[in-house]
């Protein structure tokens, strides 16, 4: 089957052990106010216009006859600096696996592998499972997830991984709803299951000032995490920069 991804990053240095290639799945059920990958939110391919270096030549706004350009109202095949692009590529799991495995001897030798990230990989669970099965036994598999999915979906995907990075953002359900758009009920249930699953994992909390990084919230999350590994990630001051490229507004 096919899925939609918006990037493949080689030599990702912060997505797990060894040398890793990270695949970014497009689409996320959460709307965290601080999201630093806004191009990963919408499940469908979308226009992404890089802001830096535009010559204002207007070529991309002239009508063109490429079928794939019509829905975006811009020509994707004419920018002299290649600033007008689409984020979101439909790929077959088998093709993606083959692409990821091209450097797999290095990934293996380095104790690294492939990391699924996003967006939210669980939103394309069947596609993720097929991809993970194709990578099984060939490279180390890791996932970065919000944990927002039904128990069944969560378990079938993370069970196929050798390592799980799972976010725990806000402990209070109302705060969670306010800042991410969804309740944390499913997340907490999946976290509880993950803790006793035997699957190696690390919880992650982004230290968004005054929202996530408050003493009360961190204390409450510490309680949920218990003795498990927990990383607190520094706030990403660069997060707002990409919003204009996807036509979104930075809310914080």
């Amino acid at each position, binding site marked *: 089957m096919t899925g939609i991804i918006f990037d*493949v*990053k*080689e*030599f*990702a*240095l*912060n*997505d797990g052990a*060894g*040398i890793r*290639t*990270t695949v970014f799945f497009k689409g996320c059920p959460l709307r965290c106010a601080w999201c*630093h990958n806004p191009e990963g939110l919408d499940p469908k391919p979308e226009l992404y216009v*890089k*802001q*830096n*270096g535009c010559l204002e030549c207007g*070529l991309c706004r002239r009508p063109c006859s490429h079928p794939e350009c019509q829905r975006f109202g811009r*020509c994707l*095949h*004419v*920018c*002299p*600096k*290649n600033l007008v692009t689409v984020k979101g590529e439909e790929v077959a799991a088998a093709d993606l696996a083959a692409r990821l495995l*091209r*450097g797999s*001897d*290095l990934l293996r*030798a*380095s104790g*690294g592998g492939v990391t699924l990230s996003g967006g939210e990989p669980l939103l394309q669970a069947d596609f993720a499972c097929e991809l993970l099965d194709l990578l099984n036994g060939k490279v180390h598999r890791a996932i970065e997830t919000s944990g927002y999915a039904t128990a069944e979906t969560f378990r079938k995907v993370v069970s196929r991984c050798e390592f799980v990075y799972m976010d725990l953002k806000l402990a209070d359900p109302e705060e969670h709803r306010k800042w991410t758009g969804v309740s944390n009920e499913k997340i907490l249930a999946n976290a509880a299951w993950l803790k006793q699953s035997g699957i190696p994992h690390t919880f992650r909390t982004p230290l968004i000032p005054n929202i996530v990084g408050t003493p009360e919230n961190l204390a409450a999350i510490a309680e949920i995490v218990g003795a498990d590994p927990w990383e607190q*990630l*520094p706030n*990403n*001051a*660069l997060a*707002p*920069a*990409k919003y*204009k*490229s996807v036509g979104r507004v930075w809310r914080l």
Partner: protein
Amino acid sequence: MNQELYQYYIIDRVHRGLRSDWKEDLAGAYSALGLSPEERMVRRFEAACAKETPVIHPLEQIAMRRTLRKLPDVLTEQEWADVRKDHYVHELGYVSNLSPDYEKTIAEGLLARRESVTSSQKRIIDAIIGLCDRYRDEAVRMGRDDLVSVFTQVPRYGARNFREALQFFRILHFALWLEGDYHNTVGRFDQYMYPYFQKDMEAGLYTKETALELVEDFFLSFNKDSDLYVGVQQGDNGQSMVLSGKLADGSEGFNELSELCLLASRNLKLIDPKINLRVNKNTPLKLYEKGTELTKVGLGFPQYSNDDIVIEGLTKLGYDYADAVNYVVAACWEFIIPGVGNDIANIGAVNFPKLVDEVLRAYLPTGGDFAGLLQAVKAAIQTECDRQTATIQNVWFLPSPFMDLLRDAKKYNNFGLHGCGIASAADALAAVKEYVFDKKAVTPERLFAALDTDWANDPELLHLLRYEAPKMGRNDDRADNMGAFILGTFADALDGKKNDLGGVWRAGTGTAMYYLWHARDLGATADGRRAGEPFGTNFSPNLFTEIPGPLSDIQSFTKQDLSRTINGGPLTLEFAAGIFNRPESIGKVAMLIKHFVERGGHQLQLNAVNLDAMKDAQKHPERYQQLVVRIWGWSAYFVELDRDFQNHVMARQEYAV
């Protein structure tokens, strides 16, 4: 590192102000006397030694610095013009880019060498000893008993210890430059110096710290006069040092001295000596990690060369195994043989993008098929190689009696041709195959109309060929195989050719400055390159290619049989310095290099790119497509980032270690 010495020589450059000009019409005087070129070289050398003023910094352990600025030429302009009429004069006409045998002379001493050399060489030796005696007198005057002892022994007699060996090297190297020879390389320093080092360490003369301080003092000496040794640009001076690598008995050359050299380079952060690391499939990860610690400093060192490919390639060209296994790196990346080599590894360069462009214009209108196009490219490469090899006849150099003293024989007289713009040419062929032949989406007329207007009339075609077409660097067989075709054809075209010294011709993957020079006058090309836009340096992707990452880049440039194009010229990977700040990155980059070697790459150079490069990248993003920067939880290509990301990363760099 001795801070006071560093301040004196590197920051304040006090010594440069103590130099004097030597303004004398030597050539005119020599010409009037009707002296032979060799006699002129010897006379100038004697005069230079006599004119040099011994100056010693009170704290330096390794003495000798130039006090004369530029040397007057030995031939008049008219004489040069006469020589050029009948001869091919390579660059400046003085010998260059060679790797002398320092070892033998350091062991035996100049008096012993004097027994069996020419009269010119005897005079050179006497002049060197005369200058060194005056250095000894200066040391006496200053009460520097240590240097008095060193200069009493060397260069008259062989070195007895590490300190004397280093000073002896300094004397020989200094004298080569004073003869007028240039791009004088250092060779396998950690091998020929090791016995002296080892003996002194075993005798307890040094701790690791004091030995390091001595090596740093020695390294500093390469930077004292280097401003006088300008090549195409400042810093282009050929002071290349080679560390580690396979030895004749099959063992590995890495030793404690190699390690100290890496450390000294890291500590000093100076552009000389230029560090090359020889590696091979048996090299442990640990050594790559040590190398990466040096890369992190941002000097662009070390450059790696792969013994497995280089030795095989040199052997195929006819070098004896015993010599090939001892190969070193010349000024930039050319592989040469110490002591017995007389190669001119940088005698010319083939402009592949231009050749491909000419063939496309002549062939596409004929309506022939793609196989025919490749045949036409092959024929054009052959014609160009025939032309260049025919042009370069009757090569003439000024005699260099002192350089000859440091060479046992001129066993190898091979000439090397750089291969310029390989990725650009390969991408052009791949694009034409894809869109003109296979998909028939672009007619030749449309292509030429766009090339002739530098894409102004057809921005869609520019986009297609520049951003959507197959490219080397993206691990795309369609382009990478064209790279293999060009390299194979280049090697075939030179195979069996002899030069007028009886040597062979070597094909290479280097560009030197031709990535600018060859590109400047070339119009737009079918790879989506704009008119005048520079090629990638050496064996690297086009500058505007969007690289998925270093794995793809490495895979693209290791698919070809590089042992057949072994004149030298690396793949360059650019990393932002910031990625090295996490300790585990060192290991990850090290594994990447090991992977490159295991895949059969021949030469690799890594950069930790600094703030200046990023500032330039903002003005000219097209030149920095491979620049990787670390953001927060992820890495990205700098040019893909929006301006505020870029500014932020740049602001952060100022605080980076």
